[in-house]
């Protein structure tokens, strides 16, 4: 029972009063971030990385705090989906389909409780899944050489671009922009500067935190100015919160099915929580006997996507921790967090720093329990916070973005670069180009090049080496399929029409 012993070790690190306090704060802040329209898990975590870093938190504390924020945001997304019909973040989009109709029928409280419990079931079981599968995958990952890693990075870019976007060319463009930016700075192998134009600030390369905060948070302000931040008012009254046991029993099957589907979708690189909740909803609808009531306030239509969404968030941590390849935008941001803390994810992490891995897993379990308590009886607190108007919220978020980058680097150059990334993010979103591959490119670009070059050193410049092992061939095949297949699948899997949603959304 290795797993349990390891878990006990993780718990002993994570269960101190101080880390528990951090978990509670993180969950609270995260739920708010998730609930507020326009702020999703990605930019929430992105905003807080520089701040927690400048506060000088140690690795475990920072991990506990920010993973609590991550999970909190996944829980919180449902609140505005149900009450405002505006998903707090993209994965919560499917929850609007049945959640908002339920709220309009006066069952807002029930919808919130069912979705809260579904979130818990999904996230908790996914964390258990993470505990079981991650060490196993880490053992497989030991057999990965540079050629396999290069193929794996290709797979991540291809599937993320293929599934996440509606236009393959644009997805490829986004990834290439990110990779191109990653090349800026000193070349590790030869020590020669590349694309620095003699600018000293660029010698160390472009800080990925600057890019992330710019693309996610600063881009948001331009959108809100353009849309005049449609004042979001809650039109639904929330009655007394009672636990609808009967409804929970009815939807338990939907929760478990959603969890399974979501977890698998999360583990696949590039698929992420949005796909998890989408597939969970569609699957639940297709097996249900009462298909017609879906979209009109069926509690199963709330439970399945919420479980799927949160299970995918846990599942996405599996490839991120074992291989260093994130499964979604938010895990890309979490990868950025690990790199900032000088922790390199990968199979070695499990062998060399088990305390990090297992205290992270332990804190995920703790965060889930905290979130269940926060999100079911205390949901009214968050509902009240939702009434913060956009004209206070957005300037506040922007200023927090600046403070974070400023206290991290202290240079005007980096802040200007952040603003430039904000403009890029605005233009890209206007053109329907995904921004997550840019982040992934900046994060993984150097490692990807490094692996390519090491593979070539090993093979003395023989290109066929890249396709020489069964694992590599499998990864390349999956990469090509992941990029090409969505073109055909897109026609089959039409997303159901959304009941007028907000266009100013973040990618998961």
């Amino acid at each position: 029972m290795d797993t349990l012993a390891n878990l006990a070790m993780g718990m002993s690190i994570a269960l101190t009063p101080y880390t528990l306090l951090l978990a509670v704060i993180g969950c609270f802040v995260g739920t708010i971030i998730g609930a507020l329209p326009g702020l999703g898990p990605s930019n929430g975590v992105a905003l807080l990385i520089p701040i927690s870093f400048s506060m000088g938190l140690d690795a475990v504390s920072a991990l506990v705090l920010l993973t609590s924020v991550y999970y909190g945001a996944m829980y919180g997304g449902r609140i505005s989906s149900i009450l405002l019909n505006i998903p707090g973040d993209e994965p919560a989009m499917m929850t609007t389909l049945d959640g908002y109709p339920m709220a309009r029928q006066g069952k807002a409280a029930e919808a919130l409780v069912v979705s809260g419990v579904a979130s818990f079931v999904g996230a908790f079981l996914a964390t258990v899944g993470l505990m079981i599968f991650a060490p196993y995958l880490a053992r497989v990952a030991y057999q990965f050489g540079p050629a396999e890693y290069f193929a794996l990075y290709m797979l991540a870019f291809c599937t993320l671009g293929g599934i996440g976007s509606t236009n393959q060319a644009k997805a490829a463009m986004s990834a290439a922009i990110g990779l191109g930016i990653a090349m800026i700075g000193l070349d590790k192998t030869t020590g020669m500067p590349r694309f620095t134009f003699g600018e000293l600030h660029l010698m160390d390369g472009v800080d990925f935190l600057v890019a992330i905060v710019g693309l996610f948070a600063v881009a948001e302000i331009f959108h809100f100015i353009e849309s005049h931040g449609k004042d979001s008012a809650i039109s639904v009254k929330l009655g007394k919160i009672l636990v609808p046991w009967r409804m929970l029993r009815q939807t338990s099957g939907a929760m478990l099915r959603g969890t399974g589907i979501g977890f698998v979708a999360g583990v696949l690189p590039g698929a992420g929580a949005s796909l998890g909740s989408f597939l969970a909803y569609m699957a639940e609808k297709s097996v249900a006997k009462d298909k017609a009531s879906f979209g009109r306030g069926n509690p199963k239509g709330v439970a399945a996507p919420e479980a799927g969404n949160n299970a995918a968030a846990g599942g996405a941590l599996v490839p991120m921790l074992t291989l260093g390849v994130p499964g979604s935008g938010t895990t890309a941001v979490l990868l950025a967090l690990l790199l900032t803390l000088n922790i390199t994810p990968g199979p070695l992490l499990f062998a060399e720093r088990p305390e990090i891995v297992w205290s992270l897993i332990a804190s995920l379990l703790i965060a889930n329990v905290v979130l269940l308590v926060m999100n079911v009886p205390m949901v009214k607190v968050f509902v009240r916070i939702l009434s913060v108007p956009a004209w206070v919220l957005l300037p506040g978020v922007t200023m927090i973005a600046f403070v974070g980058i400023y206290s991290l680097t202290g240079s005007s150059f980096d802040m200007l670069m952040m603003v430039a990334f904000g403009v890029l993010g605005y233009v890209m979103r206007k053109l329907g180009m995904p921004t997550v591959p840019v982040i992934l490119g900046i994060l993984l670009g150097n490692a990807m090049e490094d692996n390519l070059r090491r593979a070539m050193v090993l093979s003395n410049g023989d290109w066929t080496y890249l396709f020489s092992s069964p694992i590599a061939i499998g990864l390349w095949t999956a990469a090509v399929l992941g990029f090409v297949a969505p073109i055909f699948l897109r026609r089959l899997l039409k997303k159901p029409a959304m009941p007028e949603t907000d266009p100013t959304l973040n990618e998961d």
Partner: protein
Amino acid sequence: MIKGDRIFGAFMMVVALGYILNARGIQTSFMSDPVGPRLFPYLVGAVVMIAALVMVLRPDPDEEWPAGPMVGQLGLALAVLAGYAYAITPLGFLIPTAIAAGVLSWQIGGNPRRSVLAGVGLSVGLFLLFRVLLGLGLKALPAGMGF
């Protein structure tokens, strides 16, 4: 009809060309690997080229782009953010933040009085949060004026 995709694609082609030309000038040292520091940038540039070509040839239907006064508004926001990046080091946190947050708040909400309140409130509130509660190293005022 001109489409956003076409403009962006054409722009990115120029950028990619510049990128590839610049990559040709990357120096390599005597101790290099078979691939060298130039190949990966070439590959990246080539992918951008191909993707840009597709965007030019097969653009998606255009989004609605801002026009007229809205461009001015977005330009103002950009100027405020860029100015803030320059101002925060010499002028301290409080004054630039109040101005920047106030302007952005006015741009979103459109009410001058509420915006002044939001600007000042956010400036003081965030300062207290970050400086006093979280202990980040922020200066409140221009050098030589108070703490």
